[in-house]
Structures are given as structure tokens and as C-alpha cells.
């Protein structure tokens, strides 16, 4: 009897110990909202793959605080109200102490508002609209530079190489599009470039010819376009068809910067340049390895969206390991003190120029040369010499 009691106590102790053991190895669950269906699914898919890649690497090296990182993905199909509902659930029900993810600016805005309200840190991965980090939010951090800086590299290319006097701007009437166009108007003013046409269009437009004829008649030196992927291809195809000649066709990242653009626009994509935040040819520690790994696994090089997602996982790991404990406030404090090198470039969340917790990195220019996106600017990072001037449509074969 006595022995039985001893035994049962022993079993109890064992059970408790065993439970504690299991608990220590309990994985760190991190659910990420992103668009896996809908018009932005291409971007969401690339980010999901990059998140997973980073998590695998981290887990292979022992995880975060000795715990495995277990990622889950929640599809918001690029709808702000769904993104908002997902994040409310993650914070209120699942008690997740940190949020990362989302893609479109509209969704990131919605998530940022929830995160700030619930005092939970949120790291924005690739959403551009300036105002996301201009709201005096304490808990919202951004990996990628804001829209106001997207075109820094492009503007220097204009200044040094193209030297345009006039410009036309065509943009999608989304948060991202309007924000980009506004910043481009400011940039143009500063550079002394006259904006002849500044037009927005509704997503899903079938026919850009009317507006393109107008642009053609205005004859600008540069045509600057801000679109997601299908519109970008459609615009270039119709520009080719109308033979709208300009000294330069420039895209404002997003749809112009992913491999699908060339797949859909085919030869009409040739010589188009785009502003970008990262390229697979950069020499940051781990950048080329990530790009090569991604390409061998999925057949295409990733764009900045993927690189930023990949690096964000490392930034989060670094912050979680430096945080005293895993409460939202401690994690926030740790994020604020981040100073590290990633595949996306150096990361540091600064408060300047009216932005809070904003990471500032260089931006670059890529050009489609022989059907491939090549880094052409700034010259220090170039993998190929830029092609300028570009041939007129008539002369192209």
C-alpha cells in the first residue's frame, strides 16, 4: 500500500516533470495574415515561401529561445476587413504577442490600427503607403522603406542618366497607387521635371488606349506607372501597340518588379525600368544565398517582397531572443533596439522625417534586359550596364 502511494507520487512527479519538458519544447506559434487568394495572391505566395524558408533555416539551427518556430498562414485575400478580423482573433483569442505580415497598404493600415489599439507590436513587411508609419504609432514597425523613398534610386538614375524635362504619371486608384503618385509629383517638382499628365485608373480597366493616346499626344520624356501585376502587363502591351514612344518607361515597383510582369507582357516589357527595394544580385550577407535557394526551389528569382519577408523572420527571431520575456511590451522594446544585418540590408527602426519605427534602406533600379530583371542602378550595385537611350517601337524587331 505504502509502496503504491510512493509509486503514485513518483508517477505524479514524473508526469509534472514530463509536462514541463513538453512545455519547454512547445513550439512558438506565429500566424501570419497575407493574401493567398485574389489579385495579390502572387505576392502572398512569394512571401509565404520566403517566411517558410527562413523558419526552416532557423529551426535547423535550434529555433528561437530553444523552441521551434511554427508558422501558420491566414488568407486575407487582400481585403482590409478580413485582415482586421484575422488579427483581432490572433491577438484577442490566440494571445499572439507579435504580428507580422500582410501586403497591400490598405490591409497593413487596418492591421496597424488593430495592433496599436491592442498594444501588440506589428512589423509591416512590404506595404508602401507613407502614412502607415506616420500615425505616431508606438507599436507599428516597418521593414521596407516608405513610398516617399521608393523612387530615390530611380530619381538619381533620372538625374544622372535620363535627364528628363517632362513626365506622365498613370497610377491605380489604390492606397499604394495614390501614395506613389503623390510622392512622384513631389519628387518631380524637386528635380524640376514638369508633370504633363497625371491620371488614375480603376483596377480592372480593360482598355488603356484612350489615356495612352492622350499621353502620346503630350509626348513626355518619362512615363511613370504604378500598378499591380496584370495592369502593368496590359499597360505595356498597349503602349507597344500604340507605339507610344518615350525616352524611358518606368514602373513604381510592385507589379513591374515581379517575374510575372515579363511573363505576361512578353517583349513589350523589354527595357522597362522599375524602382525596387532589393534585388537578387545584392551582396548583403545571405542575400544571394536566399535568392539562389528560392530560384532552385521555385524556378524564379524572388522580388523585394520575398526578401523582406525572409529577413523579417530573422528580425523577429533576434527581437524575441533579446526580449526579457514574451510579452508584447518587452518584444516591442526589443524591436525598437534592433540593429542587425539581414539579407534585405541593414535593419534599424528609426524615428525621422515624420516617420516612426521606420527602417530606411537604399533603393535600386532594375531594368528588363533580354527578358530578365537586371540591377542597373546605383552603379555600385549594378550587374549590367543600363541600356539608354532605348530604341523606338518602330525600330524594334
Amino acid at each position, binding site marked *: 500500500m505504502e509502496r503504491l502511494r510512493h509509486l503514485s507520487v513518483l508517477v505524479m512527479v514524473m508526469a509534472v516533470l514530463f509536462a514541463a519538458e513538453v512545455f519547454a519544447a512547445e513550439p512558438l506559434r506565429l500566424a501570419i495574415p497575407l493574401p493567398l487568394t485574389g489579385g495579390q495572391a502572387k505576392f502572398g505566395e512569394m512571401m509565404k515561401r520566403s517566411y517558410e524558408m527562413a523558419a526552416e533555416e532557423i529551426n535547423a539551427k535550434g529555433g528561437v529561445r530553444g523552441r521551434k518556430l511554427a508558422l501558420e498562414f491566414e488568407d486575407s485575400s487582400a481585403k482590409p476587413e478580413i485582415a482586421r478580423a484575422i488579427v483581432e482573433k490572433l491577438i484577442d483569442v490566440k494571445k499572439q504577442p507579435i504580428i507580422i505580415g500582410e501586403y497591400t497598404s490598405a490591409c497593413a493600415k487596418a492591421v496597424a490600427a488593430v495592433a496599436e489599439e491592442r498594444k501588440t507590436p506589428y512589423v509591416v513587411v512590404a506595404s508602401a503607403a507613407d502614412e502607415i508609419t506616420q500615425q505616431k504609432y508606438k507599436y507599428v514597425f516597418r521593414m521596407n522603406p516608405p513610398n516617399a523613398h521608393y523612387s530615390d534610386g530611380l530619381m538619381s538614375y533620372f538625374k544622372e542618366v535620363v535627364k528628363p524635362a517632362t513626365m506622365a504619371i498613370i497610377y491605380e486608384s489604390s492606397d499604394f497607387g495614390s501614395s506613389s503618385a503623390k510622392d512622384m509629383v513631389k519628387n518631380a517638382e524637386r528635380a524640376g521635371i514638369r508633370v504633363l499628365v497625371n491620371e488614375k*485608373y480603376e483596377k480592372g480597366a480593360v482598355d488603356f488606349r484612350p489615356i495612352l493616346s492622350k499621353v502620346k499626344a503630350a509626348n513626355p520624356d518619362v512615363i511613370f506607372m504604378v500598378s499591380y501585376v496584370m495592369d502593368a502587363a496590359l499597360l505595356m502591351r498597349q503602349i507597344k501597340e500604340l*507605339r507610344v514612344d518615350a525616352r524611358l518607361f518606368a514602373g513604381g515597383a510592385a507589379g513591374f518588379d515581379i517575374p510575372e510582369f515579363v511573363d505576361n507582357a512578353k517583349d513589350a516589357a523589354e527595357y522597362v525600368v522599375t524602382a525596387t527595394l532589393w534585388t537578387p544580385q545584392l551582396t548583403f550577407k545571405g542575400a544571394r544565398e536566399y535568392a539562389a535557394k528560392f530560384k532552385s526551389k521555385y524556378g524564379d528569382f524572388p522580388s523585394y517582397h520575398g526578401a523582406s519577408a525572409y529577413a523579417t523572420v530573422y528580425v523577429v527571431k533576434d527581437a524575441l531572443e533579446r526580449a526579457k520575456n514574451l510579452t508584447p511590451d518587452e518584444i516591442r522594446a526589443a524591436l525598437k533596439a534592433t540593429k542587425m544585418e539581414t539579407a534585405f540590408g541593414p535593419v534599424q527602426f528609426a524615428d525621422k522625417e515624420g516617420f516612426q519605427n521606420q527602417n530606411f534602406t537604399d533603393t535600386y533600379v532594375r531594368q528588363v534586359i533580354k527578358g530578365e530583371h537586371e540591377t542597373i542602378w546605383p552603379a555600385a550595385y549594378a550587374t549590367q550596364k543600363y541600356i539608354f537611350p532605348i530604341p523606338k517601337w518602330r525600330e524594334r524587331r
Partner: protein
Amino acid sequence: MTAPQVEVLLQTLIAGLLLGGLYALIGIGMTLIMGVMKIINLAHGELMMVAMFIAYWLFTLLQIDPYVSVFIAAPVLFVIGVLLQKFLITPVLKVDSILPENQVILTVGIGMVLSNLATLLFKSDYRSVSVEYASQAWYLTDYWKDAPIELSLSFAWAVSFLIALVITAVLWFFLTKTDTGKSVRATAQDLHAALLMGVNVNRMRMLSFGIGAGLVGAAGCLFIPIYYLYPALGGQFTLIAFVITILGGLGSTVGAIIGGVILGIFESMTATYVGMGWAPVGRFVIFVAALIFLPGGVASLLRKRRVGK
């Protein structure tokens, strides 16, 4: 007017006319169903989406050109239309319900089922067929060396437009010259009289729903080389068809053609001279204006002219 201005105007008109021709083809199907069934088919755009997926897969898997797919997708859509009518709409027609227009609500449901099925099966990715001639065009200066202006005509758009014209002409011939076509029109004009004259009204309904679906299926195949495809694209084309149906006058095929062209040209003009962002607004301005000032649509004008003669 200076040469560049003339060029912009003409190029806009060309774009509007081509777009209008395709719009007309989308609108005719709806108008035909409207005339015979007295219901607005709000699954119209989704039927077009189904046809676009058929054309897309035929191209991707078997390299069949979308223009050839017209002859495959349109019959398939015809059958789908007949089946929808027979097994879903007819039973609902017979039931007394609280809402007099419950068949319309049924079509909304059909549309939702179709677009969500497409999302399930094909994810909501954007897709496009990359045909060789996607951005080929004819240029005025190629034929007239020292033309003062340069005009271009997109190969794909022009072909789509021409096929749309041919299909419309065949439809017109069918409705005016054949017995079956006349029976369809009789059913549309007066159901009871047609019944008394021995027209099989139920068959005519199935036929007209099938033809309506087949027409929009053809339109889908014509759209795919010049546009792209995703499961949720039906809604915007349903709206366009609806505007055209109202503008053309309910049930009038000729009205639908004129309505489609008016809408296309109006949208292009708005895009050029007001702003591209205003094109959808322009669409609804026309819609409201038609409802207020021309309740019978273009068809009522046509009838007045005829009476005048």
C-alpha cells in the same frame, strides 16, 4: 484642331468602337434572356468567366487558339444555359413566392456558386493567355507613308470585334428569318398569344437562355486574348451587360447593339477627356440618364421612327 488632337480623338473613337462591339455581344445575351424570360440574369458575367476558363485551359493544355475556342466554349455554355433553365429556373418560375422576382435572386445565387467554384478549383490567381498576336497592330503609316497622323488598330481587338459582328449578324438572321427565331420573338412579345398559336413556350425559354449563355460564352473567348482572367471578374461584366440592357431597351437586340457601342464610345471619351478614373462613373451616369430620360431605351426611339414612317 491640330494634328495631335485629331489623332487622340480618332484613336479614342476607334478604341470606343471596338470596346463597344464587344460590350454589345455581352449585352445581347442578357437582353435576349430578359426579353423572353422577363428576368434579368445576374449570373451573366459569371457565365462569361466560365467560358474564359474553358478557353484558357484549352489554350494552356492543348494550345487551341482562343478564337477557335469560340466554337467549343459557346456550345458548352449553350448546354449549361439550357440545363440551368430546365432544372433551376423553370421549377422556381412555377412556385408562388413572397417575392415576385425570385428567379432573379436565383440567378444571383447561381453566379455566386459559379465564381466560388472557380475560386475553389483554380485559386483566385490572375491568368492570361499569352498568344503571339497579343500586342500586334496595324499602323496607318505602314500603308500611307507620309500620313500627318499615326493611328493604330490592335490585331486582337479588331479580330474580336469582327467575330462579334459576325455572331451578331447570325443571331439577327436566326431571329428574323427562321421559324424557331420567330417563335422566340413571339414568346418575348406575348407569351399567351404564342401559347395559343402552338409555340412550345418552355422550349423557347430553354433555347433563349441557352443562346444568351452561348453568346456571352463567345464574348468570353473574344475577351481573353485582350484581357486577363480571374474567378471574380464576372461582377463587373454583369454590370456592363445590365447597363446595356437598360440603355438598349429591355429585350431589344438591335437596341443592345446600339447601346453597347454608345457605352463603349462614351467610356473611352470619358477616359480621354475627363479622366480614366471617371470611366466607371460615366458608365453609371449613362445608366441613370437612360432610366430617367429614356425609360424605353434605344428601342423606344427605333419604334417611334418606324411609326413616323
